């Protein structure tokens, strides 16, 4: 499973995400909306960016509506357009077509300064001679905010970050975790309408990444500031976002809550991209009343298969498989067994026969399954696996789009 209890709120596809967690109404939180009661929704409306000299757009007609206070994660492989989208919102990248709105305001042609967004950079240095308070507030000085206001905002941010007792100390006196919070404070004090984060965790080691991930997500929920977060790491996306938008080649593939994305991937790309270990995907022939999985019929609603042609792509997540006792189902030769206590993961390959049946190219295809950890098969064993009922994903073999629900 890729997501744990940290995962947020499930929302329906296409609707706006959860909003309004804490909004400073008690006066003890940040003045995030101070003097600025407008809803900080963000709308990409057919937003397009094409670099001069490039034959195809880097971001192609992007449509996303982000709710006030929502944490939206843009995820995808390198070159998918996620950072470009973020820069378009920041005003750092020209928009060649469509619009971008913050609240009701069309910001498409506004300069970055006039957009009230804060870009949180992945690299923050702490300055050894400056106090913690100055380290947090100095960017406001650059922006011309007056001293009293800076102090006020710094103190409020420090309260949220548990840094109040350290404000007049030098960063050297702080622990690693506290230093990291100072760096976050630097972004918080700017109290923008929207936070933009571009891979802020990419140079942390694995352990620290997990801790910081949780910290950022919970901080964002406390602040209730609309946040757009870019990452290439689908686990990060799934654990942090209220909703996740998957991009590929500049085109939005799906935008949904992590749960919906996991259970109902809209196409083959999302199915393979989201989830770790990845979903098993195979091409199988359509039969009467379902699809034929190596002599075993997996039922699929007749109307869904009406116009799909002879074959479909079938997807099964590793945890949605069970061992079959009668040698029917998908034959898998076990290469590696990874024992995790309660569960074990089987890394193996399916026999060529499966693919020969579809007339497609033959060859050993990797296959992953999760099985009961108490009685796992051994390396070299040949096992047979069947998808649990109702846990298969069917995609059109031509278009890659999901078939049925």
């Amino acid at each position, binding site marked *: 499973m890729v997501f744990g209890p940290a995962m947020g709120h499930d929302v329906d596809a296409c609707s706006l995400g959860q909003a309004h967690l804490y909004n400073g109404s008690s006066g003890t939180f940040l003045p995030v909306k101070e003097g600025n009661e407008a809803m900080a929704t963000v709308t990409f409306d057919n937003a397009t960016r094409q*670099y*001069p*000299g490039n034959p195809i757009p880097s971001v192609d007609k992007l449509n996303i509506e982000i709710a006030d206070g929502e944490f939206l994660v843009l995820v995808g492989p390198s070159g998918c357009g996620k950072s470009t989208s973020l*820069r*378009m919102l*920041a*005003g*750092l*990248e*020209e928009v060649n077509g469509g619009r971008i709105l913050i609240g009701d305001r069309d910001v498409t042609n506004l300069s*970055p300064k006039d957009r009230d967004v804060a*870009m949180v*950079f*992945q*690299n*923050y*240095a*702490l*300055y*050894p*001679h*400056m*106090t913690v308070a*100055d380290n947090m507030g*100095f*960017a406001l*000085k*650059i922006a011309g905010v007056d001293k009293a206001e800076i102090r006020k905002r710094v103190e409020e941010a420090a309260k949220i970050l548990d840094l109040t007792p350290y404000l007049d100390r030098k*960063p*050297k006196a702080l*622990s*690693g*975790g*506290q*230093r*990291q919070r*100072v*760096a976050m404070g630097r972004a918080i004090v700017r109290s923008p309408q929207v936070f933009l984060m571009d891979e802020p965790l*990419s*140079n*942390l*080691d694995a352990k*620290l990444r997990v*801790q910081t991930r949780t910290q950022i997500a919970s901080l964002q929920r406390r602040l209730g500031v609309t946040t757009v977060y870019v990452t290439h790491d689908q686990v990060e996306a799934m654990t942090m976002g209220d909703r996740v938008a998957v991009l590929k080649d500049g085109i939005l593939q799906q935008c949904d809550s992590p749960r919906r994305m996991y259970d109902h991937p809209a196409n083959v790309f999302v199915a393979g991209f989201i989830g770790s270990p990845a979903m098993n995907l195979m091409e199988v022939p359509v039969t009467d009343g379902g699809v034929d999985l190596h002599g075993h019929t997996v039922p699929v609603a007749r109307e869904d298969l009406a116009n799909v042609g002879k074959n479909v792509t079938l997807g099964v997540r590793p945890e949605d498989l069970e061992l079959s006792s009668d040698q029917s189902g998908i034959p898998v030769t076990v290469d590696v067994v990874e024992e995790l206590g309660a569960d074990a993961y089987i890394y193996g390959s399916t026999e060529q026969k499966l693919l020969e049946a579809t007339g497609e190219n033959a060859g050993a295809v990797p296959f992953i399954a999760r099985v009961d950890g108490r009685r796992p098969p051994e390396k070299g064993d040949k096992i047979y696996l069947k998808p649990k009922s109702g846990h298969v994903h069917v995609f059109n073999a031509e278009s890659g789009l999901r078939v049925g629900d």
Partner: protein
Amino acid sequence: MTLEITTARPESALLDLPWSTPLEEWPESYLAALPRGISRHVVRFVKLGPRVLAVKEIKDDIADREYAMLRNLRRLDVPSVEPFGVVHGRTAPDGEPLDACLITRHLQFSLPYRALYSQNLRPDTAVRLMDALAVLLVRLHLEGFWWGDVSLSNTLFRRDAGAFAAYLVDAETGELHARLSDGQREHDLDIARVNIAGELMDLAAGGFLEEHADPFEVSASVIERYHTLWNALTGTERFELGDRWRVDERIRRLNELGFDVDELSMTTDIGGTEIVITPKVVDAGHHSRRLLRLTGLDVGENQARRLLNDLDAYTAATDRQGDDEEIVAHDWLAKIYEPVTRAVPRELTGRLEPAEIFHEVLEHRWYMSERAGHDTPIEEALRDYVATVLPTKPEEKSVVGVDTEEMPVIGRFD
């Protein structure tokens, strides 16, 4: 796991370094005391035979990425530190895996900004530092490099005929594109503005900044200087068909700024009465390339300009304007440049780079001549300079003894 060292220049001594120890705990005996900037990572300078190497401990994939990026930048002839290698597969004796190490060569005679500021900079020197950074940023952007973390800490400075040349040290966040959009350039400038002001405010808080120097003004001046240079290099110019001399004029102006024009787009408007020119590809290093071709000397851009001026003066003084330029340059090198740089006593050779010493001797001669009211021969200027000026200079080949701090944001959680 096995230790895996990737390097373009295999050197067995690399294997002798204590890779199974976290970099932070490397014994003093391996280290060279060099100034470190503010760093988010653990960085150490290591002596390896005649060389000094900088070793940075970072995540494996970032180390690989930065190594490849630095190699690309060198290939593009961008002033940057030279990547030396990457070490993977490090394990502590207890089996705990350690992060990878990126190794770069220490840039000789280079100075971090904190070392420069701790020498009590004259205000105009501070301005030159910022100029150098602006030039570096323009050069990087012309090559399509988006830095992502422009800062003084990520830059090294080398003296360049009284001014400075800036070198990129940290390419961790960088991206190389075919070309940058205006938005990407603005993004970098925005980062520069905040980082530079922050770094200078830190110097001010530490008492290293002149009282009247305003961190905000200084950081804004970098951006301003950047824009001026960028526009001069890439701006479109239109003029009447009859004013064709202005094409040459534009090229000469760019040469004076130290850039060569490799490609110029020239179009006439629809009526055919106006010419529009836009430099398409400009390359920095006009003077240093010319000097390299003539003499084989590989020096900074301003140093090259200075040396070329002296070469021109030599050509005129010896009345050899009609001669082949290469031959005159060869004579100048043998009769003027080399005698001067070789006259420096061995114990003083670590003070300044040879080309910088030559530049200073020329300066010194000018002052002596002015004071004396007549021309001073270079031999005399040289003697006086070596006796009175050079010994007062700090050793800069590999600067030691400047106290700097390491401030990793990335630490352990409490």
